[in-house]
């Protein structure tokens, strides 16, 4: 985790998956993560950007819903197995929710300020958003 050092962390990539919905309330987050994993399993170079409510996916202590519905924590745990190593979180989205980089401990992530979020959307050649 840490502040991005440009040129290194923001190297070109093939597919950026933007996740901006929270776990449990809808299937957007799980479906986005599944798309990212499939892309990685196909050997594609994938990056993840958690922004908006998506930053809540990174909080510890999540569990299945009362009826047993899955959240996203089990998918996040599998990311490393799929070689999805470029994970980023939008600093502004964190701040609006009263969170800091110490709160997003579920995954090793790089916190990005506005200019680097822009750079990230530019350095990946394709984007899928969820």
């Amino acid at each position, binding site marked *: 985790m840490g502040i991005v050092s440009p040129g290194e962390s923001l190297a070109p990539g*093939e*597919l950026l998956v933007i996740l901006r919905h929270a776990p449990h309330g809808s*299937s*957007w987050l799980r*479906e986005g993560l*599944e*798309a990212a994993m*499939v*892309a990685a*399993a*196909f050997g*594609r170079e994938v990056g993840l950007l958690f922004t908006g409510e998506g930053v809540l996916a990174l909080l510890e202590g999540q569990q299945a819903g009362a009826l047993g519905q899955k959240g996203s924590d089990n998918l996040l745990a599998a990311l490393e197995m799929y070689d999805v190593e470029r994970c980023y979180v939008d600093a502004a989205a964190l701040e609006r929710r009263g969170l800091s980089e110490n709160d997003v401990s579920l995954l090793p992530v790089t916190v990005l300020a506005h200019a680097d979020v822009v750079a990230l959307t530019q350095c990946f050649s*394709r984007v*899928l*958003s969820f």
Partner: protein
Amino acid sequence: MRYALAVYGGPYSQQASHSALRFAEALLARGHQLTTVFFYHDGVYNAASMMAPPQDEPHLRDRWLGLAAQGETRLQVCVAAALRRGLLDEREATRHGKQSYTLEAPFELTGLGQLVEATLENDHLITFA
């Protein structure tokens, strides 16, 4: 240019399907190629064989069929999202012991890998959600 569309919005719930169809028709009119429409999330309901809207409303499934009939566009439906929502082709229906099926050609059940392919192999992917 080669285009693919991703449709995530449910028909008759969100405007997404209408927007995607309008965009599809306009891009063909401008001489582009539409290789793939990929249905995911609630967008999979666009493929429902039993869709029966009132006659004075656009029949979205038929509009997708019309698009596919123009030749070059594949209508691909995420199999995992579809099965969860009760959209099964004949093969899946048999496999799951169901008495009828709810999805048929030209819609095809495919894996998410096809969305990734469509995203990476076309010049543009436009998402309607």
